[in-house]
């Protein structure tokens, strides 16, 4: 059923594409059904867990730790790969978030992209993403997980770059893809090392096995996996791709870049927590990077007045919080992670969706231009207010529960005299204050305050001083607002139903801990130090909110060229420059330079190989005397090769080169290789005829004579290439080589029984070595693209005394009557049709 759910999502994406959803009123509702079905199915499957049979008072290990569903499918058995899925507490939590938020986002998309004829494409990519994400969190095999991980990177790229005509969107998509896919490479290496070190690729087996932290490879595994997870979850120093990804349409931002995909890194860390966390390196790496990220994100959120950029930095900060919490091993911290993940999804998702509604309704989303929307968009404003208060961590909202859990766990770690605990506690408190400040900023500036007057923004073209609210162009449809409303309602009620919810939380925390946990989230802890800190943070946050304009002014003075995006762009530019230098060096401006570099580079390994053997062994001991036909051919080849080099006319060179080729063909015939002979002969015919065709039309060769040193250089390179080719052939046909490792016998013996073909050469091409051939024809196709560009590029048109006639425009009649044009075209025959005349 797990695999079937993934397939269902994929297929429904294709179906939505096919029905052209922008033309159908009901497409939004329809699109919400598949994720809804998956949500309901998961809840149903987890019913024993949720009904409280085992979880109520936290004792029954079988259900708490246990797998709800496990599935295994054959994949590539010859490589030992299998597709395996497992639903347990943690995957259930993530699966519910993915499909549940997916319901709201799918519904919302239809209205956000109304009348956009690429809506179907968006749905296709969105559902492909959803399927990958579900596969990622349900995977129980490291490599299965990796495949879906890459799937999310690719689909995220497509979604960010949805507005592919905008350079901002393309740049954001490219940066996000380079970072996450680069991190994915590191992750692959890390996962393979992990699989090798622990002897199994099954996640459930790996986390059940103790002692990985003592393994020699542990530091390498940890660092590689952390690079993967940090790049995906936008942790410092990779955090900057996330704000850039805000070029995506808002539903994608809400779904991928706050609720689900960026949590994939967090998920991975949580999943592997039991196996990897028992080491100081884990603690300090997660604490330092997570702590830096959360402070950085929280502070920089205030700087931005674009609603989505603000939310993006807020998300970065929240991801830092989750990473920091995962550094610890205490049950309280793990529970705080779980609560934090859910509460974040339930307030940040709606906030993004609200930003999209505002953008859709007013035409912009810059806080400096907005105001007073509570009058014109009352429901949306209510949603924004509730969600923002939750983000700020104001009691009694869900965000408050999460923040309490965070501060409690950090404080309890600090109480034990743990330096790490104090660091986390301090960072969390400071971050909490900034959370309050930017949440208030968001909701105050867009919705509550009166609209800004002319001097604050440049958006005054249609709303001068008089208005109290930013004007609305497209009032949102009810179903459009319903999407965030559902989410925010869930988030608002959640704190009051914590007891049933803990049946989801506790198994999820237990999955992270790989043992039963006995802590519960609660709304009210009493006047604990954590609560007092929370109050203090709110007070400081309000103060920060009041002085926000000064903070913004200060933050915007920071030099731009220290920002991650700019550094990355510099890096890319330098890389391109380096590529250009190497290309200039290795490819040069002429064919001679280029082939010289290739030939010399190819000869290096041959020289190295030849140094290992005695050259005398290469020559066959009784040196065979070639017969008369061979001798004649050799002479012919030698003479015509020399002629090719010496002859001055192009035609002469082409013809003598053709003689070389055909003579070689005859050699193949002598040594009974008809396939090679046929191929070579055809190639020779085609090229000679073609070259004659082209070169007779070219103007005479009037180049200045080649300099002496260049001639000498070319001769040397050519001689070296010939010598290396000679030795290579000798080496291949030497007795030692033939005796040792000849694969020819295998091919000869297996061609008919295995390949059903008597022509061994062909069987090798299409069966034994079919993948090689596949690669070759792919190269051929790419070369055709290159040739197309080369032959059709304007600068390759050869210079003519007359203007080049655009093709198929006005047949040549007028031209022939024009004496000037007629004479200047000299010997170019106009492509006339003889029959027509």
């Amino acid at each position, binding site marked *: 059923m797990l695999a079937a759910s993934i397939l269902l999502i994929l297929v429904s994406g294709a179906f939505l594409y096919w029905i052209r959803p922008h033309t159908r009123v009901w497409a939004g509702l329809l699109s919400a059904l598949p994720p809804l079905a998956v949500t309901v199915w998961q809840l149903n499957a987890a019913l024993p867990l949720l009904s409280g049979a085992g979880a109520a008072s936290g004792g029954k290990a079988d259900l708490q730790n246990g797998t709800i569903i496990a599935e295994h499918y054959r994949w590539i058995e010859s490589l030992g790969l299998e597709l395996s899925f497992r639903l347990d507490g943690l995957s259930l939590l993530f699966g519910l978030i993915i499909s549940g938020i997916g319901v709201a986002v799918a519904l919302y998309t239809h209205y956000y992209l109304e009348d956009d004829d690429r809506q179907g494409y968006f749905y296709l990519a969105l559902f492909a993403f959803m399927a990958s994400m579900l596969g990622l969190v349900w995977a129980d095999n490291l490599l299965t997980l990796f495949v879906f991980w890459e799937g999310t990177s690719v689909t995220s790229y497509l979604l960010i770059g949805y507005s592919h005509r905008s350079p901002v969107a393309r740049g954001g998509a490219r940066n996000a893809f380079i970072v996450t896919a680069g991190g994915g490479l590191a992750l692959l290496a890390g996962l393979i090392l992990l699989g090798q070190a622990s002897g199994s690729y099954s996640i459930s087996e790996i986390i059940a096995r103790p002692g990985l932290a003592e393994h020699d490879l542990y530091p390498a595994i940890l660092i590689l996996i952390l690079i993967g997870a940090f790049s995906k979850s936008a942790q410092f120093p990779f955090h900057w791709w996330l704000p850039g990804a805000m070029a995506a349409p808002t539903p994608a931002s809400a779904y991928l870049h706050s609720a689900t995909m960026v949590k994939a890194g967090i998920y991975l860390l949580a999943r592997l927590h039991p196996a990897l966390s028992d080491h100081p390196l884990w603690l300090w790496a997660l604490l330092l990077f997570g702590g830096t990220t959360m402070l950085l994100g929280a502070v920089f959120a205030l700087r931005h007045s674009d609603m989505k950029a603000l939310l993006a930095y807020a998300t970065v900060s929240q991801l830092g919080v989750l990473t920091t919490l995962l550094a610890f091993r205490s049950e309280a911290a793990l529970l705080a992670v779980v609560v934090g993940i859910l509460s974040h999804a339930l307030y940040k998702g709606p906030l993004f969706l609200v930003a999209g509604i505002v953008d859709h309704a007013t035409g912009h989303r810059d806080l400096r231009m907005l105001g007073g929307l509570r009058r014109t968009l009352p429901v949306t404003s209510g949603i924004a207010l509730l969600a923002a208060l939750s983000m700020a961590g104001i009691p009694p909202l869900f965000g408050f529960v999460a923040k309490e859990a965070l501060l409690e766990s950090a404080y309890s770690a600090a109480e034990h005299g743990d330096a790490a605990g104090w660091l986390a506690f301090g960072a969390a408190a400071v971050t909490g204050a900034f959370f309050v400040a930017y949440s208030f900023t968001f909701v105050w500036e867009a919705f509550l305050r009166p609209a800004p007057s002319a001097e604050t923004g440049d958006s005054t073209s249609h709303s001068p001083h008089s208005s109290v609210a930013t004007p609305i162009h497209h009032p949102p449809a009810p179903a459009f607002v319903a999407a965030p409303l559902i989410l925010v309602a869930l988030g608002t009620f959640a704190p009051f139903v914590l007891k049933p919810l803990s049946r989801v939380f506790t198994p999820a925390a237990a999955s992270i801990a790989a043992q039963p946990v006995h802590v519960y989230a609660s709304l009210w802890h009493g006047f604990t130090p954590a609560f007092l800190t929370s109050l203090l943070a709110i007070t400081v946050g309000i103060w920060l909110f009041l002085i926000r304009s000064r903070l913004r002014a200060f933050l915007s003075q920071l030099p731009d060229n220290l920002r991650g995006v700019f550094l990355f762009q510099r890096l890319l530019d330098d890389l391109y420059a380096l590529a250009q230098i190497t290309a200039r060096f290795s490819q040069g401006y002429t064919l*001679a330079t280029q082939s010289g570099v290739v030939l010399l580079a190819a000869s290096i390994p041959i020289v190295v190989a030849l140094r290992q053997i005695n050259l005398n062994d290469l020559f066959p001991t009784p040196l065979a005397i070639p017969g008369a036909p061979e001798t004649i051919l050799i002479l012919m080849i030698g003479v015509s090769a020399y002629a090719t080099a010496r002859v001055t006319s192009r035609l002469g060179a082409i013809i003598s080169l053709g003689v070389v080729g055909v003579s070689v063909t005859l050699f193949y015939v002598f040594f009974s290789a008809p396939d090679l002979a046929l191929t070579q002969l055809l190639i020779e*015919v085609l090229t000679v*005829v*073609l070259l004659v065709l082209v070169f007779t039309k070219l103007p005479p060769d009037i180049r200045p004579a080649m300099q002496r040193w260049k001639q000498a250089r070319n001769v040397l390179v050519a001689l070296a290439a010939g010598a290396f080719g000679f030795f290579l052939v000798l080496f291949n046909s030497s007795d030692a080589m033939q005796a040792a490792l000849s694969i020819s016998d295998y091919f000869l013996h297996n061609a008919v029984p295995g390949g059903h073909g008597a022509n061994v050469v062909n069987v090798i*091409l299409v069966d034994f070595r079919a993948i090689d051939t596949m690669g070759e024809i792919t190269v051929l196709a790419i070369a055709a693209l290159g040739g197309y560009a080369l032959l059709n590029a304007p600068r390759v048109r050869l210079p003519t005394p007359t203007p080049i006639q655009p093709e198929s425009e006005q047949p040549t009649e007028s031209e022939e009557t024009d004496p000037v044009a007629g004479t200047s075209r000299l010997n170019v025959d106009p492509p006339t049709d003889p029959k027509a005349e």
Partner: protein
Amino acid sequence: MPELYLRLLNRILTPLLLLLAIYLLLRGHNLPGGGFIAGLMAAAAFELQILSRGHDRVRRSIGPYLNSGIGLGLAIAICSGFAGLLNGVFFKGLWFDLHLPLLGELAVGTPVIFDLGVFLVVVSVATSYLLGLSRISDSAAPIPDGASSLELSDSFESDPAVVADDSSLRSER
């Protein structure tokens, strides 16, 4: 340009060459031939067409199919590889024995289909090159005073600006 003997040859040879190409393709698994050779042979037929009828007319008749031919060939080749998955492994051959009314027993397998893909790619790539180059040759005319240089010549090493700037060429007019 199209001379009489070429047009005559074209009438006779083009169908023969194409038939020969198909023959080579079909028999390739057991006798000399195969997709690559057959593709080149078909391209030779098209080259004869270009020579005898002019590249414009050939481009009009088969030009639109070339790009799709490349794509189709690659798709066929890849699909025949995936068909091997039914047999357990990517690109593992699948074979069927067909009983045809006139030809008798015929063994058809995914490698043969793969060869068809190779044929399509080779013929399309080769023909599009031929068409492209023959157009270039058509638009070129000798420059009497040798004021400018040619793309293929060695002299760009000394003056890359000539390549970079098309307008310098246009100004010759």
